[in-house]
């Protein structure tokens, strides 16, 4: 694909994101015209003060969270797919989100009678947020490190995927054990949190989430060139002068930071991270990370906004679990990959 077409498609994705963002602001139990919503962002006060309140206190943080989470998960998935050289790698499919969940559960319980989970009751105080986000990132990183260690001995993609699922199961059962020692209120909050939601992130939490996503993206962008070399495998990458040890470390850090932070604030969100990189590769017909990194972030953000709106479709203050929506889109992508690979190579 020529450079001009790449830029063209990126522009299209950016436009789609802007449109979806305005729709996200307008869409909800109280309808606010998209134009008014967009104007309000640029300082034109909306005619109704209630609208103003809804926009600034509810919808804008929610849409921003959707954008941050979607782009972070998609980017994390892209990094993991190249790092593991496995098309089925992703934050959710490889148990990384479960590791983050375990981190969150530990943090909440260790905070004894913690004020609750992010998605439900606002965690205030920067230290508390950093604690939850930090332990989520640590949990994600730990599981990823485990999978990475095992992956060096295992060639089969599918086996690796099952291993990831098993690590996720272990983390999940540890969470269940923790729940046995929790109050029913905590369990209820926790269960809602695991459905995934963008609604719980407040303005005071936004800087932590945004900071983590920004840091992860910057590391990823700086690794774009060696990531391309890694497409040939670790041995060739090394023969091309890539410092594989440090690259592995940076990728691990970036992917855990992105997936862990999002999980801490939004719950484990399924399939976005796995599916978006494949959609981008298909759309751009490219494997170049300098193209795929911005493409995944834009498309991930857009799909994330769309999924959030779909989850709110029932209306009347009711919402579907976000995971139900993302799985409906994401799972078929996984099936498609599996079928295509099986067809190409008869075993």
């Amino acid at each position, binding site marked *: 694909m020529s450079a001009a077409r790449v830029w063209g498609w990126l522009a299209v994705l950016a436009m789609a994101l802007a449109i979806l963002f305005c729709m996200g602001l307008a869409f909800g139990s109280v309808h606010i015209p998209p134009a008014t919503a967009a104007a309000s962002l640029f300082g034109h006060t909306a005619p109704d003060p209630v609208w103003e309140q809804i926009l600034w206190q509810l919808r804008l943080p929610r849409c921003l969270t959707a954008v941050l989470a979607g782009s972070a998960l998609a980017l994390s998935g892209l990094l993991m797919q190249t790092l593991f050289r496995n098309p089925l790698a992703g934050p959710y499919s490889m148990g990384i989100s479960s590791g983050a969940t375990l981190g969150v559960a530990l943090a909440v319980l260790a905070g004894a009678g913690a004020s609750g989970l992010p998605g439900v009751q606002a965690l205030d105080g920067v230290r508390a947020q950093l604690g939850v986000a930090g332990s989520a990132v640590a949990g994600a990183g730990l599981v990823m490190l485990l999978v990475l260690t095992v992956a060096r001995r295992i060639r089969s993609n599918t086996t690796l995927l099952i291993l990831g699922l098993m690590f996720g199961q272990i983390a999940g059962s540890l969470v269940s054990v923790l729940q046995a020692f929790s109050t029913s209120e905590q369990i209820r909050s926790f269960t809602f949190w695991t459905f995934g939601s963008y609604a719980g992130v407040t303005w005071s939490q936004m800087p932590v989430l945004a900071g983590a996503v920004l840091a992860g993206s910057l590391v990823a962008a700086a690794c774009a060139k060696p990531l*391309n070399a890694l497409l040939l495998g670790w041995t060739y990458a090394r*023969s091309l002068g890539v410092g594989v040890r440090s690259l592995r470390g940076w990728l691990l850090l970036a992917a855990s930071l992105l997936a862990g932070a999002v999980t801490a604030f939004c719950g484990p969100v399924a399939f976005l991270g796995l599916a978006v990189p494949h959609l981008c590769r298909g759309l751009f017909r490219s494997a170049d990370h300098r193209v795929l990194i911005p493409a995944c972030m834009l498309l991930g953000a857009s799909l994330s906004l769309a999924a959030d709106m779909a989850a709110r479709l029932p209306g009347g203050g009711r919402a579907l679990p976000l995971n139900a929506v993302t799985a409906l889109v994401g799972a078929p992508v996984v099936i498609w990959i599996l079928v295509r690979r099986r067809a190409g190579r008869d075993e």
Partner: protein
Amino acid sequence: MKAQGSLQVTAEAGAPLRAEGLAVGYRAATERRVLEGLDLELRAGELVCLLGPNGAGKSTLLRTLAGLQPPLAGRLFLAGREAESLSAQGRARRSAIVLTERIEAGNLTVWDLAALGRHPHTGWSGRLSETDRAAVRRGLEESGAWELRERLFDELSDGEKQRVMLARALAQEPALLLLDEPTAFLDLPRRVETMRTLRALAQDRGRAVLLSTHDLDLALRAADRLWLISAGGVLRSGLPEDLALAGAIGSAFDQGDVAFDKATGQFRIHGHPERRAHISGDAALAFWTARALEREGYAAEASGEGHDLAVRAETTGGPEKPRWIWRARGAEGVASTLEELIRRLRGHRAPD
């Protein structure tokens, strides 16, 4: 031209590859030295084939020379600079390797893949300059992959993939090109073509090329020098013909019923012949007659006395009407095909 410039620098700086007392192997719980005490030199413009039986350490040596695993002892110089003092990038600018491992490249086109060879030359973003593009193009042309440039790598045949991987290595513009069994998986015409390409790269472009291969016949004909590893872990370097005449090839490969025949430059695979045959006549006929008789347990000899069998191959009736006049102990006759000759010989031998 940049390529020429970089080669001049190489020529000033010393041989593309030199090793002193090099030991290669693995460092696990205990150190396992596969080869040691190696003093090697590869000069610019030289094609060297690394030969040896399986497990002799060919891949280990190549991987060590490429910096993919550390040497266990000794010193290694790339274009005059000690390898250890070079950065990973600096090393990748001096030497490139093509491995046997197969890669899956997803959506990479041939051009994209070859362009990855510019990795050690480009800045942090990997953006290709005009010079980089020219180097990629040259690599694709020299390896014969230019026509494939817009295809997806994953859709190519084995031979085509091999050419693209070579193009990627050439795009690195290395003074030293290492290849691990580049002719494996290829059919005969492709093997010959690969060798010819590599020869041209060495001769015309002044690169030093080192490749490991099991293709002894091709190596004997195409290599400027052989590095011959015998099962005992001794590496001998020399002109192919010198090594053949000195019996070094035989001592490296001979095993059981397989033996290198100095006279023909080929391996005898039929064990220890019990009978001797004297074959004379038309050269081509005699060659194939000898092949057929070797399978029957005869050692074909061009001269000498006291044979068990004498065969004279003639084309007096025209080139498409050959005949074989044969005389064994107590029997003789004329055959019009080799099949008939063999059948008669078997029939004659059957009673005893």
